[in-house]
């Protein structure tokens, strides 16, 4: 069976699963929602068939599992969002459609050779910096829930950080491929760029007050630096710098202190600051082994108000874990893990430095982001306001993740074509 036929078979399975998901939400909440919900599964399946067709045309040799897994994750996300608020699901569905178009455009544009991106690496680096700086600009920058991560132009609102992350990865892939030998020698002056990016991460931390985003950018950098140079010393030094810098920020930014103290002991202020994380723990715990079933969890008060704030973005894992239980949550983690494994396999199969670094960087970014938000919800690390890739509600996030998927698939296609040829 060819790679694309395998992909189609997998997508069919995902389509059936998504249909079952919407059907069970419908059965559980018949009193509140209409049969229209069932059309979501159909719409969704059609959307992925289009994506599949584009893949068939542009990247015939790419990994056949990545797109179905992304489809599965968005399917789970959309079902969960729909279950919480059908109107949000409608908007999310629209964003998924836009993202699939964006995904197709990337594949069509770069189907011949994505490696020409390498020549624009500094442009990407600059772009990343500009995007990161945008929310800080007065007039268009917006503070949502204490973190300055948003940009608003008219009615249009997005988180530039999501796209900046991808641009940073493209820049690093190009830059590190070029400079890795020099860097590997480890002369003192070569720490310059490292210090520069560390400074950038600290700036992000101070500006956004968000430890998670800073950790994400700096983690991506350290991971790619290690892959490029093989110098563990850089990673250790980088981590030490990061921890030191974070501690310095911690000492004089109260919001960061709050986040850390909640992380250490949420029960100290269970009715206030620790509320969100404790409610999230309750929600996850009440799912138990088998969960309550899709559509049967408890997330709202009798007045219809949501018990856990930001349930459909930052805390969507808490909602899903309650309804699908330990079995379902484990399966979800497994899907993420498999996605990461396929991504790294792509990096392993790629034959040039830029491709390897790009695939590894994109996958690592994806994995690190997943871990940072899950770790935050599960109280392994301080909680951060970033999204769970493909699953969380949010346009910028979905768009960026589809671009990320496109990037990995392009690398995979090239490796596959070479392998197959």
């Amino acid at each position, binding site marked *: 069976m060819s790679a694309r036929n395998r992909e189609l078979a997998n997508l069919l399975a995902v389509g059936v699963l998504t249909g079952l998901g919407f059907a069970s939400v419908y059965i559980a909440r018949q009193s509140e929602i209409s049969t229209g919900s069932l059309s979501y599964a159909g719409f969704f399946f059609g959307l992925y068939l289009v994506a599949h067709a584009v893949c068939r045309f542009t990247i015939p040799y790419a990994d056949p599992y990545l797109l179905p897994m992304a489809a599965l994750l968005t399917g789970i996300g959309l079902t969960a969002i729909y279950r919480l608020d059908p109107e949000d699901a409608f908007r999310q569905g629209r964003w998924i459609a836009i993202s699939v178009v964006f995904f197709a455009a990337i594949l069509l544009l770069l189907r011949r050779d994505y490696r020409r991106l390498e020549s624009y690496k500094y442009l990407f680096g600059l772009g990343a910096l500009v995007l990161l700086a945008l929310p800080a600009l007065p007039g268009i920058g917006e503070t949502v829930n204490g973190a300055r991560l948003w940009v608003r132009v008219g009615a249009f609102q997005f988180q530039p950080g999501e796209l900046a992350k991808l641009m940073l990865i493209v820049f690093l892939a190009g830059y590190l491929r070029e400079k890795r030998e020099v860097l590997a020698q480890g002369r003192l002056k070569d720490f310059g760029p490292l210090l520069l990016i560390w400074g950038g991460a600290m700036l992000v931390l101070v500006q956004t007050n968000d430890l998670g985003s800073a950790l994400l950018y700096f983690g991506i950098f350290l991971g790619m630096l290690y892959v490029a140079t093989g110098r563990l010393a850089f990673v250790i030094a980088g981590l030490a710098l990061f921890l030191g810098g974070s501690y310095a920020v911690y000492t004089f930014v109260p919001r960061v202190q709050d986040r850390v103290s909640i992380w250490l002991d949420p029960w100290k202020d269970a009715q206030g600051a620790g509320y969100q994380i404790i409610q999230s723990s309750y929600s996850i715990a009440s799912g138990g082994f088998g969960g309550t079933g899709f559509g049967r969890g*408890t997330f709202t008060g*009798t007045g219809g108000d949501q018990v856990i704030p930001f349930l459909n973005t930052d805390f969507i894992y808490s909602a899903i874990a309650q309804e699908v239980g330990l079995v379902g949550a484990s399966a979800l983690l497994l899907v993420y893990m498999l996605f990461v494994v396929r991504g790294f396999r792509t990096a392993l199969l790629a034959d040039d430095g830029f491709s390897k670094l790009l695939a590894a960087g994109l996958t690592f970014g994806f994995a690190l982001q997943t871990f940072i938000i899950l*770790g935050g919800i599960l109280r392994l690390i301080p909680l951060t306001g970033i999204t769970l890739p493909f699953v969380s509600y949010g346009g910028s996030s979905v768009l960026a993740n589809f671009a990320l998927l496109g990037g990995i698939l392009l690398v995979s296609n090239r490796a596959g074509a070479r392998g197959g040829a």
Partner: protein
Amino acid sequence: MTRARGSVPNRRIRLLLAVLVLMFALAFGRTVWLQGIRAEPLARLAESQHRQTVALPASRGAIYDRTGVQLAIGERATSVYADPRQVRNPRAVAIAAGQLLGRDPDDVLEELADRRRSFVFLRRKADPAAADAVRRRGLVGVGFLDEERRAYPQGSIAAHVLGYAGLDNDGLAGLEKQLDPVLAGVPGSETIVKDPFGRAVKVIRSTPEQNGRDVHLTLDQNLQANAELVLAKVLRESRAKSATAVVLDPRSGELLALAVAPTFDANRFGELAAQRTRNLTVTDTYEPGSTFKLITVGAVLSEGLATPATAYTLPYEIQVADRKIHDSHPRDTERMTVAEILSRSSNVGTVTLGQELGKRRLARWIEHFGFGRPTGIDFPGETRGIVLPAERWSDSSIGNIPIGQGIAVTPVQMAAAYAAVANRGVWVRPHLVRRIGRGPRVRGARKRLVSRDVAAKLVEMLRGVVDEGGTGTAAAVPGYTVAGKTGTASKPDERGGYSTSRYVASFVGVVPASDPRLVILVTIDEPRSAIWGGVVAAPVFADLARFALQYLEVPPDAR
């Protein structure tokens, strides 16, 4: 596996993957911990932390008079409270409580300083307008609670009867206490799971409240108000300690007015001393004096020992054991009929009749007329009075009990006994509640005391009291025939004897005598102007009767 062309060793990528797998394993382990191992205790914690049972208060039934006038109602009130832990600006809260809620700001400040508490009342059941004024100040940490406040729209009218319901809407005195099971209703409850912001998440169990039922009294607001007005006037003029008036419909036992002076504002019941708020007509006794002679005469007639025309030769003074009994005004020895004994209120004559009866028969008739035991009126704290059983009578008892001394009765007992005579010999239990909710009309228990014939003769003899030559001429009501009896009893003093300066003056009458519609009893405790029932109490009776007969549109039965 494709060979990496020396550019980027795959080993590093695998190591990176291994690190990530480790991190995901950690997340997986944590999920297992939360959902598998800690699920039970966390679930319990989640429920227990926020589960709360709140009472759904039932609204208290209203009390109406017999014509539907509101005597006691539930009024909307707003309780203002503060959470000291959430109050940001205690000074502003204290100032607001001082300006708008009538609290001492220093007290409030002190209460707010106690951070261990999360709830203090700034003012319980405040006026909703004042509470709104506080609300408009937008103080953080101050909350409002809609409650019901008991209000007595008629102020002092029937205050002694209505009694009082406390802050928690529980009847503490008077009819509010007596009728509490009916008025209070049954509060409901709701067990809810709350989030930390106090928003209800889900209702686990809910029992709806059952509101209290309304009560309609036998009292008539107009008659009650008039009685209180008249008593207040007599109290002022006679400088007496207190006065009571009972207006009773003898046919039904319904109390149309039950007044006590001095009065007070029912809304301030809780602030007054208990002595001040006692319903003296039910809870307190007095020595009836001459009004009691009706019982002795009634007994003599019933026993067939005499007729109203039976005449006796009576000296001014007789000796009974160690005591001398004499009439109130010196006179020569003369012959008096039983009717004359009653109308002229002869002590010697009545004691002579009592001696003819003997103490056993007299004691039985006193008990028969309902003295020495509660009437069973629907009011709390009724006293039975003080009536000695025959075996404990002293030798001189037969010299004072027939004339209403050495015996203590309540105004309601006395009014009920006269009402029985007025009602053709049938006693009807006096009562205050006419109807509960939409229930049937309450009917008082009945008992025949004397025959129809004896009752008619007694009424006829009582008419003589008010006629020319009687002691109670001041009780006459133009246009109506009045039958009644005066009473002037000196009060027992501390030394076990009788006071020569402190008296209870009373009058009890039946009107119209030809077809009794009302029995009215007036007692005046320690009048200073004049002591005689015929002088102090009889005019009060006349005032009350005139107003009531007109108000009730009772047709006149005399010229």
